[in-house]
């Protein structure tokens, strides 16, 4: 028999056997096992190494509070570091390996640290490694970092997917022990929408671990029967393998469902885990309690574990850590472990109880005393006991169960403002008064440690929260033992007695922390790292607090408690991200001509989630500049077309529409004639330029406003703010219609000729002059909008049709444009043409520029109120020598003028105090045959013709430049009006 420590009974399925590997060695376990229980069954006690001293470690617990038995689960890209063997559900073919070791687990070379532990006390690193100065980063820190960390990531992309989801209910029950099940029954029978969540893969909580009977059947059977009833209720949603990770504001809980972690790999298309956001009116927290250890010398050897964990292994998993077991306890609970193990045929070496009045037993020896030390290199062999009479005994045992009392799992009660309060009967913290909204705590989590107390508390909680009328049905008969505990935290004189096993914090470290003045709980925690390990201090915080209290001569509640923060247990980053990874990180927005552009081989660029064609390479072009230069030249020579759908569009309607725009734009709109378009500059209330665009008056009471692509959302929000909050009685209605219309710019000397072949109306220069706009029809009757506006500086139009026709319109334009050699152009060519025209765009409207900086100071109307007007008049925004937008060209046409470079005077130092300005946007102008830039220069409008240096030390460029007008092409705008 390979599973030498497998007992009989339990809730595993002995008929289903799984093979698994740990550190390369094969073992067998059963369905229903965890990795930890299966390893124990096979006689494996040594499962890991501690963080600092690399002490050999085995399991301490049988649950998610486990500090020691951490493994790297699975291999390859699915390798998952720091996985608790105590919660990893066994599956056939599972592969795990131990971590944080140099060499094998048995012979870890880093264990040498343990020999030097006297030098490596709490906070030692703050006091040394400072000389010589350079050595910290070059010598000391690399060594420390190399030793740091526990498990390792594969550094391959996580191949699994994660879902997110949303659930709504009347009552969320966290925990499926007796209190949770009782609450679920009460609530479920009332018809309320109930969610019952438990982190375990088997519902029932400690009922599965204990031998108490409920109503004449075993607790486990009662739990199974209750689950069967609940499963049949359509209003109860049962969520196994689901950890509620946090209680957030207003009854929102985060929960992680491990859908596939018990499988070798997830099923195709299925997520590994799901993050549920649960919206609930009420919550019953029935998270149970965690047993706490007692600190004594060398209390960390493999085989030493919580007494309650021993019961779980024996009763649920049919496993014992060894055939010869001792118990050390300060309360009656430890005796239960002895009784249960004895009943399963395990030899009890003795029960050591610190209490003089401990119960005695016919089946095993009960000693009044303390365990003062242990022996055994890679696992426990002997426990040394000091008896109350002063004599000593050495107990031979391969496992030692320790019971120091129970701590209610109050974590979730603290996730908001709650602070637990001290209950001296239990010698433990229990939930305080200030609970998250709608929460009631029941059962052991509330300090009701008996099974009866849990059943009663759960039922009452559900009843009161849901306002269920009538009397509760009679609860089944069950155990109702009082708690009988004598606070006992550590054995007197113990020094290397572990409080926080993972982080290697001992009693001695806590004492040193006190000695050095780190006495507040938070200082203790931060100085010693107590409770900062992956188990979040679930088994260690109380011990540390108790010792600090004793040293400080205070009570435990006077010392306080550290704050419990989400998540309840460590949570995969992947599941918190859900599907928003890779290409799905953000949604994509495709323009109406996207498919057509793809067919032409366009290169796309991301702008505010839009994918826009950046340029359209043609055969033979090997560098993007070739394509862009060609597109620019062809547009300026004949005609080009560009998809400008992405510009934000806001439909502004109503009798007060013009008045409204007068308010949001710094320039005037009240008198804009119907059929006309005007450029508008919007300021923020602080007087800085916010956005620019055009407003076209299609009717007396109807404008279409455009915004820049990037600002579509904030501008719309701002306009709604002005409408609803500042001018609530203006009769104006706003609708964002960005996506409703496909809009294309047709630009170039032949633009009109081309469009005349499409539109159904007269668009001659007289009928449809520069800045005209109209609702028209095209192609024999399709409704469309036409604007004669130009970003390129050419004779240009923007034509819009309902989006569904966008693809067809683009193909039509290309078709009729063939005779003009029409060239589609992308955002790069668009950018070149706008720089050639000196139009400001995102790089210039960078949130710090004023209208004056942009050379548009004259546009801020003094005749009317508008947003930003008053604050735009502050001195700091109107100082002499302020920045002005200018054009920059290289003196030697071959030189670059990079954006982001700074302007310096022709002579003098090059440093920050002599900074004159900077280039914002730059490009190569194929029309001028050299690079050009626009930028901001101090007192720029007075410095035309000045020679300066444009320097970019970052990219190693320094160019002699001349300051010129930003209107490099057609400064008088003749082409626009042609």
């Amino acid at each position, binding site marked *: 028999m390979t599973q030498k420590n497998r007992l009989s009974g339990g809730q595993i399925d002995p008929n289903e056997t799984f093979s698994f590997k740990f550190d390369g060695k094969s073992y067998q376990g059963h369905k229903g096992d965890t990795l930890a229980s299966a390893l124990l069954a096979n006689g494996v006690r040594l499962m890991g190494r501690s963080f600092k001293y690399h002490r050999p470690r085995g399991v301490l617990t049988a649950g998610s509070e486990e500090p020691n038995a951490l493994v790297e689960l699975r291999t390859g890209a699915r390798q998952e570091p720091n996985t608790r063997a105590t919660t990893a559900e066994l599956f056939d073919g599972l592969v795990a390996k131990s971590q944080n070791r140099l060499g094998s687990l048995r012979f870890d070379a880093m264990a040498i640290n343990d020999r030097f532990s006297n030098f490596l006390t709490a906070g030692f690193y703050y006091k040394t490694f400072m000389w010589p100065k350079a050595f910290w980063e070059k010598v000391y820190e690399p060594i420390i970092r190399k030793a740091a960390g526990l498990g390792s990531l594969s550094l391959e992309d996580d191949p699994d997917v994660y879902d997110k989801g949303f659930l709504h209910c009347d009552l969320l029950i966290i925990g499926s022990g007796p209190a949770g099940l009782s609450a679920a029954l009460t609530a479920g029978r009332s018809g309320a929408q109930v969610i019952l969540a438990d982190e375990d893969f088997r519902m029932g909580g400690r009922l599965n671990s204990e031998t108490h009977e409920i109503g004449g059947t075993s607790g486990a059977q009662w739990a199974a029967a209750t689950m069967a009833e609940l499963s049949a209720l359509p209003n109860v949603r049962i969520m196994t393998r689901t950890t509620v990770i946090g209680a957030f*504001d207003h009854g929102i809980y985060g929960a992680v469902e491990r859908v596939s972690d018990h499988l070798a790999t997830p099923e195709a298309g299925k997520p590994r885990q799901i993050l549920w956001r649960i919206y609930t009116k009420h919550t019953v927290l029935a998270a149970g309690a965690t047993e706490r250890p007692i600190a004594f010398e060398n209390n960390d050897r493999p085989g030493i574990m919580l007494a309650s964990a021993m019961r779980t292994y024996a009763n649920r998993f049919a496993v014992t850590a060894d055939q010869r077991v001792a118990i050390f306890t300060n309360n009656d609970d430890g005796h239960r472990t002895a009784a249960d193990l004895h009943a399963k045929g395990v030899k009890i070496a003795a029960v050591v109880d610190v209490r003089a009045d401990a119960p005695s037993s016919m089946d095993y020896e009960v000693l009044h005393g303390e365990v003062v030390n242990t022996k055994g290199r890679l696992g426990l062999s002997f426990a040394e006991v000091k008896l109350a009479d002063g004599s000593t005994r050495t107990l031979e045992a391969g496992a030692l169960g320790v019971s120091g009392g129970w701590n209610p799992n109050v974590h979730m009660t603290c996730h908001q403002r709650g602070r637990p309060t001290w209950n001296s009967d239990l010698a433990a913290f229990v939930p305080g008064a200030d609970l998250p909204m709608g929460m009631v705590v029941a059962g052991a989590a509330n300090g009701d440690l008996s099974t009866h107390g849990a059943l009663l508390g759960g039922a009452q909680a559900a009843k009161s929260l849901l306002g269920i009328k009538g009397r509760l049905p009679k609860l089944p008969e069950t155990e109702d033992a009082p708690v009988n505990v004598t606070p006992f935290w550590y054995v007197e004189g113990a020094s290397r007695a572990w409080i926080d096993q993972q982080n290697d914090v001992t009693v001695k470290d806590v004492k040193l922390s006190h000695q050095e003045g780190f006495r507040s709980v938070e200082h203790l925690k931060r100085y010693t790292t107590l409770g900062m390990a992956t188990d979040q201090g679930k088994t260690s915080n109380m011990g540390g607090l108790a010792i600090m209290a004793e040293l400080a001569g205070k009570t435990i509640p006077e010392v306080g408690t550290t704050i419990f923060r989400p998540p309840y247990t460590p949570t995969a980053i992947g599941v918190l991200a859900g599907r928003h990874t890779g290409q799905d990180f953000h949604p994509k927005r495709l323009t109406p001509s996207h498919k057509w552009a793809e067919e032409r081989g366009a290169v796309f660029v991301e702008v505010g989630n839009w994918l826009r064609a950046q340029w359209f390479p043609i055969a033979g072009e090997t560098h993007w500049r070739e394509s862009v230069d060609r597109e620019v030249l062809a547009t300026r020579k004949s005609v080009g077309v560009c998809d400008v759908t992405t510009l934000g569009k806001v439909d502004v309607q109503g009798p007060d529409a013009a008045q409204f725009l007068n308010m949001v734009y710094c320039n005037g709109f009240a008198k804009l004639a119907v059929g006309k378009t005007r450029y508008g500059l919007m300021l923020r209330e602080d007087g800085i330029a916010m956005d620019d665009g055009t407003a076209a008056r299609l009717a007396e009471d109807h404008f279409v406003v455009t915004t820049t692509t990037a600002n579509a959302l904030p501008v719309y929000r701002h306009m709604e*703010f002005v409408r609803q909050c500042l001018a609530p009685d203006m009769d104006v209605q706003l609708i964002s219609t960005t996506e409703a219309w496909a809009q294309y710019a047709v630009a170039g000397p032949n633009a009109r000729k081309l469009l005349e072949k499409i539109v159904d109306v007269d668009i001659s220069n007289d009928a449809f002059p520069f800045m005209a706009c109209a609702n028209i029809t095209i192609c024999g009757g399709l409704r469309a909008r036409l604007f004669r506006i130009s970003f390129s500086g050419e004779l240009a139009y923007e034509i819009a049709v309902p989006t569904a026709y966008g693809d067809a319109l683009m193909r039509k334009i290309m078709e009729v444009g063939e005779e003009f050699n029409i060239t589609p152009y992308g955002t790069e060519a668009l950018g070149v043409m706008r720089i050639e025209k000196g139009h400001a765009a995102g790089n210039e409207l960078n949130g710090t520029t004023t209208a004056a900086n942009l050379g548009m100071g004259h546009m801020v109307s003094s005749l009317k109120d508008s947003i930003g007007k008053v604050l735009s008049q*502050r001195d700091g925004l109107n100082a002499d020598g302020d920045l002005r937008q200018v054009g920059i060209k290289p003196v030697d046409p071959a030189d670059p003028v990079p954006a982001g470079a700074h302007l310096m005077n022709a002579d003098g130092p090059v440093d920050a105090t002599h900074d004159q300005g900077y280039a914002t946007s730059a490009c190569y102008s194929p029309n001028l045959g050299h690079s050009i830039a626009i930028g901001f220069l101090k007192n720029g409008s007075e410095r035309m013709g000045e020679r300066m240096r444009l320097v970019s030390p970052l990219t190693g460029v320094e160019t002699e430049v001349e300051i010129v007008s930003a209107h490099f092409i057609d400064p008088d705008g003749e082409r626009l009006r042609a």
Partner: protein
Amino acid sequence: MIIEHPLLGPRDSSEFTYMGDAKLIDRPDPEAETAARDFYEYGYLRDNPAGWHDELWFHEQGDRSWLVVTRNTLTHEISKVELARDVARARGRSK
């Protein structure tokens, strides 16, 4: 957090965009002699209380209403939610 929208009922706060102090409704008179000072205070100074706070939230992923939410900045408790437009009207903001 959940914001009890006066028209739509409980909505997750992640559907909203936050702007801050609802005093931003009280835009000063630009014609007043003290306009420069008034706008500076309006634009820049905040009570920033630790406790109850009237604040503006925009239902960006909802009905595009601006709301005035009375929320406790210590506990995040919400005691009142109104349409900002109603508040603006009640505060006498005319055309």
